[in-house]
């Protein structure tokens, strides 16, 4: 449904995107994550036909965003990271205006606006001036605005930015509902645990490049070349930490109360051998296992590896 193919984009001397390629299949909720300046907003702007790629091609539903920009606009709903609303317009009028801008017939607009306000849980705000709505309500109204022309693809740049926890939860619910409607959603956010909850797949970007992509499980596995392990013993935790430091494939071994944490590099058989060796040596082991990484830690690990590689180059 969405295809970036070798896209590069410069702003003066700054390289915003470099040979960026990504494929998003229909019906997926796809997360774009990366630090500030990673190129997420640039990629989304190109997809939204607001900027031209310097090199490469981008297509939406098989339509090129440069040569068939009008066709693409009919297929996408775009919500930028920062957006304003019009003063002196009521919520329903706001949606009807955008419906007209997408050439929806006049007779359908008011019914459409009412339905969309219902979808984003603002049915009682139809007659309220837009600028008097709370930030969370404005975000939901903007999401409704993205849907006026029933697009196949939604591009949501930081839709949860600046929202309180309740408003974020409501936004998540709406995005889940959009997935049920078979919309393809490309979403960026800094709040990684929430992205992990709603996204089918994610892509990690850094310095304009795609660093990793796949399901959340795949991403966390990719970053798991060296695993964080934890052993809890009934006594002699300090001695165990010192013992582990002498073993091959183990680094950063340290005691923390009754438990010992360390970084382990090796196959599962070696991991089993390590446990057996500890028990044979006489430590009373209560727990032994891997400290599960979440998306945030995977993101830090992947972007950290990139930074280390860049530093080494």
């Amino acid at each position: 449904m969405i295809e970036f193919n070798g896209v590069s984009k410069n702003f003066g001397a700054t390289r915003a995107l470099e040979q960026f390629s990504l494929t998003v299949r229909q019906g997926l909720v796809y997360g774009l994550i990366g630090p500030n300046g990673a190129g997420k907003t640039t990629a989304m702007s190109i997809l939204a036909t607001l900027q031209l790629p310097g090199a490469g091609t981008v297509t939406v539903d098989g339509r090129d965003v440069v040569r068939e920009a009008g066709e693409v606009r009919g297929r996408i709903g775009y919500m930028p990271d920062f957006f304003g609303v019009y003063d002196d317009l009521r919520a329903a009028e706001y949606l009807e205006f955008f419906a007209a801008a997408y050439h929806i017939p006049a007779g359908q607009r008011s019914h459409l606006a009412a339905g969309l306000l219902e979808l984003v849980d603002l049915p009682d705000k139809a007659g309220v001036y837009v600028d008097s709505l709370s930030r969370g309500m404005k975000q939901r109204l903007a999401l409704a605005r993205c849907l006026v022309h029933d697009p196949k693809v939604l591009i949501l740049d930081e839709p949860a930015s600046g929202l309180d926890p309740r408003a974020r939860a409501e936004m998540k619910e709406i995005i889940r509902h959009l997935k049920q409607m078979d919309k393809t959603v490309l979403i960026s956010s800094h709040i990684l645990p929430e992205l992990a909850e709603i996204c089918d797949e994610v892509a990690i970007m850094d310095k304009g490049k795609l660093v990793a992509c796949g399901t959340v499980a795949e991403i966390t596995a990719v970053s798991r070349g060296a695993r964080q392990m934890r052993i809890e013993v009934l006594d002699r935790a300090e001695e165990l930490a010192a013992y582990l430091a002498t073993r091959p494939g183990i680094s950063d071994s340290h005691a923390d109360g009754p438990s010992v944490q360390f970084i382990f590099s090796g196959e599962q058989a070696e991991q089993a051998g390590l446990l057996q060796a500890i028990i044979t040596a006489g430590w009373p082991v209560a727990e032994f296992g891997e400290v599960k990484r979440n998306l945030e830690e995977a993101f830090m690990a992947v972007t950290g590896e990139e930074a280390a590689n860049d530093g080494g180059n």
Partner: protein
Amino acid sequence: MAEINPVLLKELRQRFRNKKASWLLALYLVVIGAFVLGFTYLNWRNAPGFYQPSRSQEIFILLSVAQLFLLAFVTPGLTAGAISGERERQTLNVLLTTRLTTWQIIWSKLVSSNAFVVLLVAATLPLYSIVFLYGGISPGQVAGVFGFYLVTMFLFGCIGVACSAFFRKTGVSTVTAYGLTFALSAGTALLSVFLIELDRSYRAGASAASSLPLPPDFITGVAQFLQETNPIFVLMEILGTNSILNDFNFGLPYWGVYTVLYLAAGALLLFWSARLLFPRKNN
């Protein structure tokens, strides 16, 4: 039936729903009305109980010139924030991702702003009835003056829209639009007066000017052209004061030169403004 452009409809709805519109209209009428009624009062005071009908033409000139200055003040002010205001409110990008073309957006912005200016001018029509009350002015002259206002406000509006498309900040756009309007209104007049004086001294054989490499006819032609593109000179000519030189024939009457030039320049500015909204490879 063709549907009204959604941006135009929205702009008109927003503009006329806003209380500022009523206040601006009231202020405009108070200023124009003060000119006319003040002048009428002075006329009556100098000759109590008697009104000289011949002076109604002076009132007409005063009213028309005052209105031109107010148009030059109001029109760029209303249009200079048309696009930059959308940028500042962060609504432009969303608008550009709809099925509306950049041309439709630009044109609607101009029409909605100028519609308000037309309302201002139309609202002054009752003041013109004071002039008609005492005679001395033909309906053709009034129609000419209002036609002149439409052409003038078109270009002034286009200048404002072009500045707002080019500059990111409304403040910079407004100052530049006023600067260009002033250059068009006063700059061309001053330059033409300067050229006429230069030509006069040249013809008189003054030493400083006699070394000029340009033929005197060329200088006079440029001066006349500047006058025919200057709104003050053209308005005075419509009002029957014979203020424009009549040495050259440009193939069109003075009002024809003015109309063609202003409409063409305005159309070019609008075209350029629409181009500025296209996505670019580097920005």
